[in-house]
């Protein structure tokens, strides 16, 4: 499915916001989104959340014949799948430009930097070596797939355990995980890629672009480093022109970010290891957050109440005489009423008895003051029934026999007061 | 059958003494032409930091306050009034798309062609449906540029009896910068053939028509067999064109004629040999200089 193009006003908005150093999600220029790493039940399966971007990596191994040019080295194979699950723009099976780009970058980042000791993967030189295969699947695309993929891949490789192999003379035995504990891969260092996006011909720079920012960017610079401050790969893409100073600055920022992320990965690996040792539950299902409603909370809004009195007075004075009402409905029991058309107000406001109390209450300052209330209560004392043409609902205030009940709720609104003032409650 | 073989050898550059007399201002992309802001910038230049910089490799042409750089080789940039020879690539609704060696395909509107029979009426829906009978994909036409669209595409018209579908003949495709701009591009050469020198570099050689086909309106192509003498003349002219183009000589009717005369002593197929080409071109250039001077 073709990607819907970004509207011009959205594009202008994002660019303008970037000029004012604001990002859509409120981050700073050099901030990463929240990274969350979880592991699956198998060794070598790892999920990485970078904000809303979600990526899964799985490592598997297999004994194969080695390449002729390198008979005593193992083989590393990387594959990134852009599944349509991640974004409707990705098509199943078609090797789009983005997928080629990501695959090559991941290969260069991990393979050319020699982060894994491939010679230790050799079982029988020239005949059998381990082929380690890393499959990365994109589960949700919210920008910056490359960084998420690199973190996922290297974490999965660190997490992975391969079966132990025993060699007796000419015989090679591969032990299953039950017979002998699987052994981890020997990893020299952990290269992590950091993406920098450039806007307005290189004037503005953002780290970790989200999907919207990616759509408006001019170009991308990807720097892969490890925590020893060794640069493993640099790749600039998109049609931007860079200056040497910009590249140097980006590499310094990348060094800082990489050390943070490496720490996060080590912590996550450690947690997982302790969890497994303790026999705790681990796996994908555990990592999904439960959605629970714990409380219903409403926000408080502050209201400007300094000139409310005058406004209220004006409204009341301009209001005509309150219309006469229909006969009061049946009141089956005290405090019970019906809320429907033409019925009485069932909020249980007792006006006459509580006016004085209300006045005192209202001194506390939050509610609106209706000093004119006592006056209004005198009006409308007649018993004449008028059937008016007004469509307004008649509000009837229901009072119970027991006058001591203070049914007045805290957050009484202006309307209730007005309604109360319009009608004289009738028994 | 004798086959001609030659080994590669070092190309010797055609040393032309005349070039020393023309001291041209040759620039390459990125060269600063002037820092004076009083000049207007034309094609082939851009302004970078208040400095006028060249964006193509070629010679600088200065006309009063206008500076432009003309590249050596470029696609055809049409102007109103140019005569072009083109090939129909598409038949669309109410228009044809014509390939003319420019950066976008040119457009020939249905309302810009003469109806067969020379009628003057409004084009109807039936005319639209029978467009393919007038011109099909692959047909060659000669036309004139009527206007230029905003994105650079040309709008052509064939509203004259000398334009229209081309019949039997030979097409030679050359660079547009080699064709000299003249008053007329249709020439009947005295050697017995006619030529259309399209401004877009396409040159059409055809036997001189016996009598004018008035009623056809340019759509009737005569399929009568062409005589052997005419064919030889046309072949010789074609090879002369290729020789002139290889040595970057400006093409117009006189230069083509001189080249033809200089080549008469060789056989038609020998003209394509490099040393014969050189000889002929040298003779042509001499004659042209004599004529000028």
């Amino acid at each position, binding site marked *: 499915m073709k990607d819907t193009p970004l509207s011009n006003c959205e594009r202008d908005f994002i660019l303008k916001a970037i000029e004012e150093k604001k990002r859509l999600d409120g981050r700073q220029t050099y901030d990463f989104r929240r990274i969350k790493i979880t592991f699956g039940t198998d060794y070598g399966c790892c999920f990485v959340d970078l904000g809303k971007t979600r990526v899964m990596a799985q490592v598997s191994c297999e004994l194969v014949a080695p390449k002729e040019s390198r008979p005593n080295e193992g083989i590393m194979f990387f594959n990134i799948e852009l599944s349509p699950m991640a974004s409707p723009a990705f098509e199943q099976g078609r090797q789009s430009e983005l997928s080629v780009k990501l695959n090559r970058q991941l290969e260069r980042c991990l393979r050319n930097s020699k982060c894994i000791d491939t010679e230790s993967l050799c079982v029988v030189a020239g005949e059998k070596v381990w082929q380690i295969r890393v499959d990365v699947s994109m589960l949700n695309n919210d920008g910056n797939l490359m960084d998420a993929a690199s973190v996922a891949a290297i974490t999965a490789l660190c997490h992975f355990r391969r079966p132990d192999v025993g060699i007796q003379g000419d015989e090679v035995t591969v032990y299953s995980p039950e017979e002998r504990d699987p052994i981890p891969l020997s990893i020299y260092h952990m290269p992590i890629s950091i993406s920098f996006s450039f806007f307005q011909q290189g004037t503005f720079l953002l780290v970790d672009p989200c999907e919207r920012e990616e759509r408006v960017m001019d170009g991308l610079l990807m720097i892969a480093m490890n925590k020893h401050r060794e640069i493993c790969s640099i790749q600039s893409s998109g049609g931007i022109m860079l200056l040497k100073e910009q590249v140097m600055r980006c590499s310094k920022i990348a060094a800082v970010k990489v050390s943070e992320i490496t720490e996060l990965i080590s912590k996550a690996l450690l947690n997982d290891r302790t969890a497994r040792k303790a026999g705790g539950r681990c796996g994908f299902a555990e990592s999904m957050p439960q959605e629970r409603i714990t409380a219903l909370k409403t926000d408080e809004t502050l209201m400007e109440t300094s000139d409310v009195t005058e406004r209220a007075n004006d409204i009341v004075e301009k209001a005509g005489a309150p219309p006469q009402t229909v006969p009061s409905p049946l009141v089956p029991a005290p405090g019970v009423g019906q809320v429907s058309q033409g019925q009485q107000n069932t909020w249980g406001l007792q006006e006459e008895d509580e006016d004085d109390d209300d006045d005192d209450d209202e001194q506390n300052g939050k509610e609106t003051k209706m000093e004119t209330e006592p006056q209004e209560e005198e009006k409308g004392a007649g018993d004449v029934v008028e059937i008016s043409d007004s469509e307004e609902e008649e509000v009837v205030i229901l009072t119970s026999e027991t006058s001591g009940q203070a049914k007045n709720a805290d957050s009484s609104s202006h309307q209730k007061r007005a309604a109360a003032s319009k009608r004289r409650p009738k028994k | 059958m004798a086959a001609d073989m030659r080994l590669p050898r070092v190309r010797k550059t055609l040393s032309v003494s005349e070039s020393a007399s023309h001291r041209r201002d040759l620039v390459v*992309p990125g060269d600063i032409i002037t820092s004076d802001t009083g000049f207007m910038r034309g094609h082939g230049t851009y302004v970078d930091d208040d400095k006028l910089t060249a964006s193509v490799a070629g010679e600088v042409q200065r006309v009063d306050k206008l500076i432009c750089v003309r590249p050596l080789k470029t696609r055809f940039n049409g102007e109103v009034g140019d005569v072009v020879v083109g090939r129909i690539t598409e038949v669309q609704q109410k228009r044809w798309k014509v390939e003319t060696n420019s950066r976008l395909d040119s457009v020939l509107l249905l309302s810009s062609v003469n109806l067969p029979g020379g009628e003057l009426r409004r084009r109807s829906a039936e005319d639209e449906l029978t467009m393919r009978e007038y011109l099909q994909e692959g047909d060659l036409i000669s036309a004139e540029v009527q206007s230029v669209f905003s994105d650079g595409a040309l709008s052509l018209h064939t509203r004259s009896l000398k334009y229209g579908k081309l019949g039997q003949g030979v097409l030679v495709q050359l660079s547009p910068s080699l064709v000299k701009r003249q008053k007329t591009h249709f020439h009947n050469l005295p050697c017995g053939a006619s030529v259309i020198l399209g401004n877009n570099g396409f040159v059409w050689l055809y036997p001189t028509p016996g009598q004018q086909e008035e009623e056809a309106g340019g759509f009737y192509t005569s399929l009568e067999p062409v005589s052997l003498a005419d064919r030889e003349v046309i072949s010789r002219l074609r090879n002369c064109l290729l020789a002139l183009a290889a040595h970057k000589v400006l093409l117009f009717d006189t230069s083509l004629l001189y080249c033809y005369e200089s080549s008469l002593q060789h056989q038609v197929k020998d003209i394509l040999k490099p040393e014969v080409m050189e000889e002929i071109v040298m003779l042509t250039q001499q004659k042209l200089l004599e004529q000028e001077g």
Partner: protein
Amino acid sequence: MAGLELLSDQGYRLDGRKATELRKVQARMGVFAQADGSAYLEQGNTRALAVVYGPHEMRGSRSRTLHDRAAINCQYSMATFSTAERKRRPHGDRKSTEMSLHLKQTFEAAIMTQLYPRSQIDIYVKILQSDGGNYSVCVNAATLAVIDAGIPMRDYVCACSVGFVDETPLADLCYAEESVSSLSVALLPRGGQIALLQMDARLHQDHLEALMEAAMTACKGVSKVLDEVVRQHLQEAAVLNVCP
């Protein structure tokens, strides 16, 4: 690869060059009459042919026309006889597609595409002999071809690959040196702007600056050579009678 001394004590490399010396560059423009622009470039033992068609009407998928600029279409391929072992798949594999994308990106930055809306420019590059520095040679050859076609560019695009051995930057790598470490830079010399930056190797961050400086100096050297080639070609190919 033990035993291959990439940089000897006296400062000589495998092929006898000094650390910052470039290989011999020979180039020719206008090799094909059929194409709008063409060029052939040799840098040491690496040879490439570049051909440019355009700008012309968009062929193929009409949906890819850009309404405000020209679309650039690059294809990189290696001849099957270009490497020591015969190449099974000359184009279509991941490395070639990636190279094509990089070339496209490089030229999109340099060619003034706003002048040609809704058209397409095709750049085809073929490596005839590969001995390191493939990308750089392709870019240099394609620059010459684009100039030959008369397509306006902001500036030359020159590329060079540099490596880092024994604390010394080496310019213009050959195949043996490339497998150790390589940084490729495509530069527009006058403004010092980098159109493409690509590095595959482990390099400590402190050395990055020195390496980039070396790369930019090498690119400027290449640009001087290309400049000479273009000016020579201009002189030779100038039309004899000037059009009014």
